[in-house]
């Protein structure tokens, strides 16, 4: 009987990202799961969070009675500002993004291709209302694009694919992919497995991945055969 493979908890994946981003980095977190990264900054590390609606030095959510509907993040949730924060208008905010001043952006994904193409803004359904926000600006401008996502869709379809079937957010833009099963890196238009969850092995990973996977000799696996 096959064991149910769960991989890492998504919070643990967020923690991995928080560990990997260097101290002192300027970071933009996408809406949803990427926001978890902010909960896991290691002690002694200082990251500065940028939200494209005009705040550098975003802090955590406020106590409910202190919430200010005019102090929000890109997901339109109430946030706080750290001492040393600054407010600015949208053109200045996207100067930070387009100008390559943000070090890391962590985004969710519908699909990521083995060449680093990202699809995360539209499923391409003809009658859906298209909405892009700042996603295309972020992937075009930020130095390092990290994706955090479940490895497959809720129905078990691969999200890490040879070629995205959904409309692209950007082509060859993703640097690393963090999923519940593995950490993958795009190098020279190829996808390398850097690390796998303890209950994941390479055969399993291939079985839930449409993309071609490369296993460098030095990849980390916590897999222990049972």
């Amino acid at each position, binding site marked *: 009987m096959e064991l149910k493979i769960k991989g890492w908890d998504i919070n643990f994946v967020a923690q991995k990202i928080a560990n990997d981003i260097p101290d002192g980095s300027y970071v933009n977190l996408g809406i949803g799961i990427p926001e978890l990264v902010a909960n896991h900054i290691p002690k002694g590390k200082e990251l500065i969070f940028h939200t494209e609606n005009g705040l550098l030095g975003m802090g955590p959510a406020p106590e409910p009675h202190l919430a200010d509907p005019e102090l929000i993040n890109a997901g339109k949730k109430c946030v706080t500002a750290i001492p040393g924060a600054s407010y600015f208008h949208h053109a200045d905010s996207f100067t930070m993004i387009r100008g390559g001043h943000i070090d890391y952006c962590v985004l969710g994904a519908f699909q990521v291709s083995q060449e680093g193409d990202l699809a995360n803004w539209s499923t391409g359904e003809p009658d859906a209302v298209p909405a892009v926000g*700042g996603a295309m600006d972020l992937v075009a401008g930020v130095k390092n694009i990290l994706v955090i996502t479940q490895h497959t869709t809720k129905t078990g379809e691969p999200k890490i694919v040879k070629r995205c079937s959904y409309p692209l957010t950007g082509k060859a833009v993703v640097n690393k992919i963090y999923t519940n099963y593995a950490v993958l890196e795009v190098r020279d238009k190829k996808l390398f497995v850097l690390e796998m969850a303890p209950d994941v092995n390479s055969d399993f990973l291939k079985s839930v991945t449409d993309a071609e996977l490369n296993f460098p000799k030095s990849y980390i696996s916590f897999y222990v055969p049972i």
Partner: protein
Amino acid sequence: MINKIVSSVQEAVADIFDGATVLISGFGEAGSPIELIHALIDKGTKNLTIVSNNTGSGHVGLAALIENKQVKKVICSFPKTANSVVFPELYKKGEIELELVPQGTLAERIRCGGAGVPVFYTRTSVDTVLAEGKEKRVFNGKEYLLEYAVKGDFALVKCLKADRYGNLVYNKTARNFGPIMCTAAKVTIVQAKEIVDPGQIDPEAVVTPGIFVQRVVEVKNPMEESVLVAENRRYPWN
């Protein structure tokens, strides 16, 4: 004496004409000039092209303007939010046009409109469906898209404090599109929570210099869109 203060939101929007392009500040409800929008609903101006990041929530403010069939087209980056019902419905019925623009491209297009720059090039949306039909050009080995400036006949903007010259400061992330929209419209109309005497705003901290503003109206206690939406209010008031 220069005095850009007008006494009511009605007076402030009185000359907005059918078919005008109107830039409306705000990111969600933060910075959305809801009282000015409601005055525009009262006025009933038709066939507007609205440039705004979103399309409003519930049945008040920008959503109500759209629901009232005054808007022909919206130019925006994210035409739906948690509580957007009006725009999606009209859009699916084909009753409103949408020009979808990435948020940073929208911001820069508006800034260009204000700065006398007709076009600029950007990497944003290269190799995506939003690049279709756009002129491309390679600089330093990378492909860029040509994007055109956006200008408005009017801008409706919300701020925190203003003086009679039109100098403005904003509140936190409600600043968002306000300052660039002020620069890009022929007539910029601002609602301020407080009007102060010239010199009361530190000249080092002025965000929008008065030259970019034509009219200021004081709205001391602006409504909060999220509260109105939670109460299921509709404008015109039900």
